[in-house]
């Protein structure tokens, strides 16, 4: 195995970080932060396939995340489903929904696509807030622990390893996909849609495929969040969370899987660190965001790689 390629080398590095990070996690609070980073990273790795590689914006992915979370929550808490069955049904349901709405939505381009995905996300979040008999409305609802073969999965430390493992799998899948005929088709669509079409690529199908995959990533992350936290509120379903997710992808660097992970980690940690600024938190966060995008318009990781390559020459 050649560790010098970004694929295997990056995967090995990520595995090492996940393996040794607990040494630095001094208490449960930091475990919680690490889990949050991991969950955001899973969503961002999927979202980056859609935005960064296929060039299709989505401002509504928190909707899929929320459907995953509330699907698992409602099926287990209200209808007494076994968590594994609820997870499977929810994931399948979200995939189906993405397939159905994706068909008309993905015909749109640019800002129109942004508007449609944004609208979809907002509608999902309003449904979650309004259907309070099922979802508990704005107050949220509690979710039973995930049980597997009679064992309840609970505790920050256990969930750290679960989320870490799923993140590793998500990154591996994303890297595989990019270096496959399907992934090349997506990147080709981004490069020149008409060039891709005359090469035999069915643009609608390819976009739809990656839309569904990225929605499933988000939904799985949502389901995990619900069971891990034991309680969910509509905050994670709304427009702001969608924006947050896109920002992480763009901040880390579009069309870079590890960039998406770095973006998720940075923008999850930043607010935690900025809490010391108290009332100045929003101002500084906004300023950091603007400055990064102005000075590193390609995002963090690709800009870094670019600078390093320039130095080598």
């Amino acid at each position, binding site marked *: 195995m050649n560790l010098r390629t970004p694929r295997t080398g990056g995967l090995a590095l990520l595995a090492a970080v996940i393996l040794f990070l607990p040494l630095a996690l001094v208490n449960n609070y930091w475990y919680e932060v690490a889990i949050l980073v991991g969950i955001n990273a899973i969503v961002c790795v999927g979202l980056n396939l859609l935005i960064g590689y296929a060039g299709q914006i989505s401002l509504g992915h928190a909707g899929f995340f929320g459907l995953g979370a509330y699907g698992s929550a409602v099926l287990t808490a209200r209808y007494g489903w076994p968590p594994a069955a609820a997870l499977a049904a929810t994931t399948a349901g979200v995939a189906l929904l993405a397939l159905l709405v994706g068909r008309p939505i993905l015909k749109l381009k640019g800002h129109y696509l942004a508007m*449609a995905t944004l609208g979809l996300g907002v509608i999902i979040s309003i449904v979650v807030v309004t259907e309070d008999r099922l979802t508990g409305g704005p107050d949220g609802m509690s979710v039973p622990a995930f049980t597997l073969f009679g064992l309840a999965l609970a505790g920050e430390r256990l969930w750290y390893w679960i989320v870490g493992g799923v993140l590793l799998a998500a990154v591996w899948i994303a890297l595989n996909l990019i270096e496959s005929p399907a992934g090349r088709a997506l990147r080709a669509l981004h490069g020149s849609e008409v060039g891709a079409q005359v090469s035999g690529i069915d643009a609608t199908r390819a976009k739809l495929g990656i839309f569904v995959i990225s929605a499933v990533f988000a939904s799985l992350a949502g389901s995990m969040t619900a069971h891990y936290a034991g309680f969910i509120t509509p905050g994670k379903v709304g427009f702001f969370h969608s924006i947050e997710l896109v920002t992480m992808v763009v901040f880390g660097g579009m069309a870079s899987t590890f960039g998406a992970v770095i973006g998720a980690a940075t923008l999850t940690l930043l607010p935690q660190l900025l809490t010391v600024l108290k009332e100045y938190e929003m101002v500084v966060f906004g300023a950091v*965001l603007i400055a990064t995008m102005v000075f590193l318009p390609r995002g963090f990781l690709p800009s870094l790689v670019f600078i390093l390559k320039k130095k080598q020459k």
Partner: protein
Amino acid sequence: MSAQLAQYLLSGLTIGAIYALVALGFAIIYNASHVINFAQGEFVMIGGMATVSLANAGLPVLAAIPVAVLAAAAVGLALEKFAVEPARGASVVTLIIITIGASILLRGLATLVWDKNLHALKPFSGDRPIELAGATILPQSLWVLGVTFAIVLALGWFFGRTLTGKAMLATSHNPLAAQLCGVNVRFVLLLSFGLSAALGAVAGILIAPITLTSWDVGVMLGLKGFAAAILGGLGSGAGAVVGGLALGIAESLGAGYLSSAYKDAIAFVIILAVLFFMPSGLFGKKSAERV
């Protein structure tokens, strides 16, 4: 026409006029720069909040309003100068994130300069409802409709009759060609942000006596304005106005006859439905890709 229907139409028109003003702001900036300015709603907030705080400080409302509008315009200019201009040539998504950063920054500043409370602005000419075709209308609604109408006329004159307005239109069609004809494209860009900010602020001031105002009032109004601009067809001024009014009326009717809990969702259901059948909005140009 039943009185109830008339009532829904009137309140729909009022809020629709506000959406139209915000949508015009989106359209003007989009035309000049192809940027969707996600901080547009923040101009609405600044307009309302600045007027309230100036009025509370003892300034007569008539004096507070122009100061607030100018303040918002100054913020718009600063946004263009320090955040959008330095990032020229960046991808659309990067520019979107920059304006999102700006909107977070501006909301944060609002909580520092003002506070996180709801504020009321006194109606311009009392709050005694006026009877109209069996329905009632607040005097403030008349202000909203009247001022919006005047602004639309003024913008029509500006873009159709003045050299600066025509220069802005020319830039939207082809920046390079406009520049070759002697149009100062950088000035046009700056002007478009100033103008959009001023429009947003006016909307924020007009609506503040009806719906109250606060540091985060710009979020939903911004999104609805964006929806209205898209509904009409991005970049079309007439489309923005029609889109705004249509959205306002549909929302008001939907909330009245269908479900008030889903009032905010109605705008987005409509926009999705329209985009499914008309992917460039109602008045948007269908662009044939040249290859």
